[in-house]
């Protein structure tokens, strides 16, 4: 079974702080990590390979340092990596990202593409479905349980819904997006980390990929960012300390009633 896992390197969002003076993000010293949802995707692909045999290829579009995310996936047990990297890819929105990935993936053979549900920096959850459309395969999003039939022709997946889940069957090839609960991603061990450096990694630029310049990066993106600013800060309001609980509760309920909240 041939499985492709598109991944993204993201900043550890929990450690991103705001500069109170300028209101901008402080990214210095913030570690870059493999997007956590992508770890579920990598783990799922490796588990399927362990069961059915085959090959797991991880692919990313990103700056040179995104190689570290690929290495992590290789260390977990992926077999090979593809790194699409070129300044011309910069500024891509979800459409241009999905398009660039699709051009490369169409050149490869696959039975399944497994993405993370969303990246924790942009949080859009759009690249997976857009990629499925551009590859012309069906999609099952927010998968938290996955089985592949013994004949390797079908998947049965549990797709998270707003009030539970659906059990969905689809014929391969298919694109899935993985969410929390699908598995417990393994930690790479020393052997894995050593081996990762020797696994094949194709580094591909825009010219080699053969994509027109106006379809990629900022130029290929139908959306543009007009402005970025810190969210309107919620000023902390009333804070009560060292007060008898009954008295505090009374003040709270008066406050809520005055706001018409209860």
């Amino acid at each position: 079974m041939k499985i492709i896992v598109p991944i993204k390197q993201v900043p550890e969002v929990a450690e991103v702080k705001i500069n109170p003076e300028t209101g901008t993000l402080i990214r210095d010293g913030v570690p870059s990590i493999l997007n956590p949802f992508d770890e579920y995707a990598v783990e799922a692909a490796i588990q399927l390979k362990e069961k059915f045999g085959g090959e797991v290829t991880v692919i990313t579009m990103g700056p040179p340092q995104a190689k570290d995310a690929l290495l992590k996936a290789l260390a977990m047990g992926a077999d090979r990596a593809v790194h699409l990297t070129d300044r011309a890819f910069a500024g891509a929105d979800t459409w241009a990202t999905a398009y660039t990935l699709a051009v490369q993936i169409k050149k490869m053979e696959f039975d399944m593409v497994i993405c993370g549900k969303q990246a924790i920096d942009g949080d859009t959850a759009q690249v997976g479905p857009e990629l499925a459309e551009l590859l012309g395969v069906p999609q099952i999003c927010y998968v938290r349980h996955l089985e592949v039939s013994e004949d390797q022709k079908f998947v049965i997946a549990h797709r998270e819904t707003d009030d539970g889940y659906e059990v969905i069957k689809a014929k391969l090839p298919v694109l899935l997006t993985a969410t929390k609960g699908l598995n417990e991603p393994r930690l790479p061990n020393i052997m894995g980390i050593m081996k990762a450096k020797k696994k094949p990694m194709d580094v591909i630029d825009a010219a080699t990929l053969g994509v027109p310049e106006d379809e990629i990066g900022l130029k290929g993106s139908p959306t543009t960012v007009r402005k970025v600013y810190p969210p309107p800060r919620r000023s902390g309001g009333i804070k009560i300390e060292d007060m008898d609980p009954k008295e505090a509760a009374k003040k709270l309920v008066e406050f809520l009633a005055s706001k018409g909240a209860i």
Partner: protein
Amino acid sequence: MGLLYDRETCTGCMLCIKVCNFGAIEKDGDKVKFDIDKCVLCGSCEEVCPVDAIKIERRTVDEEALAEYKDVWVFCETHEGRLRNVALELVTKARELADKLGERVVAVLIGHEIEGLAECLIHQGADKVLVVDDKIYADYSTDAYTIAMASLIAPRKPAIVLFGATNNGRELAPRVAARLKLGLTADCTGLEIDENRQLVQIRPAFGGNIMAEILCPYTRPQMATVRPNVFKPSEPDTSRTGEIEKVEIKVNPLQVRTRILDRVVEVTEGMKSVEEADIIVSCGRGIKDPSNLNLPQALADLLDAAVGGSRPIVDAGWLPPTQQVGQSGRTVSPKLYFALGISGAIQHIAGMSSSDIIVAINKDPEAPIFEIADFGIVGDLFEVVPAIIEEIKQLKEKR
């Protein structure tokens, strides 16, 4: 390359460094230099530069072609034969946007035996409802719904199409966008019309650390998914009239490549959905033991509220995943949010910070949740919450 920097013109005022969110600009002698690998071409520097030394090359806009696209559409999701709340919220918002543009609101209703809902959408503010009714649409499927939406949008040329950012909306909209080669903005929390009649799509990113304003300058329609519970639905006006048009869009069963074998509802009997509740009582580690959950439940019952939880509580299996509030769970924006024993990790705050009123009760006076709470009580929740319940009961009796 997208960014052009005119070093000669640059006065070295360094304003651009201050506004860059991505650390892509640094001081270079008395001028600046750009790290293109870090730059996302967001244009903050271009906007702030007083001498226009920074230029971001963008595509040209064919204004004549774009002007052909008119009206504000809303994909109105149904669930078990009922409209989802977000559909009513979006029709209300669409009305406001359409009035600014002087255009119509068109609601799109796809499903089976759902025509009866069209009237509600007109009362809510729609001028027209497109009804696509067929057995094939009885259950949501990405394939059938994508065909329906793409078939409606392509010939009718709306200017704007809005989807609720539900699980279905968040996977349908990008599929449609990719098919029609359109821009799409996810999870908007604000929508405006700018001076050029463009839709300004406002959304949080980086776990809620920054807000971004997104435009779709080159293509139409402009598409966005919008978070539930952000916009309030208006009171329905039953005197409103509008047009209902039935549209037949055939889908061959073979075109639907996924099959639903089973559907499992995990919302526990009596447990309200956090996404649709007006009031949420959430608890975190401070609740200490699952047997203590009857306390937040009692408060929730009193207020007709949903019980939610932070990630550790859900990971421990004390609450089902459907009740998890935060970045890896649900995003909510109720009228009132109680954070009981929740310290306020950024991932949790990202999922609830747009609530109207936040009440925090925590033992630790330094807990970050107090920084965003409208009303915070430093104290033991096991003493404070029973007192709150008592106070609310008394208030209800008085009324």
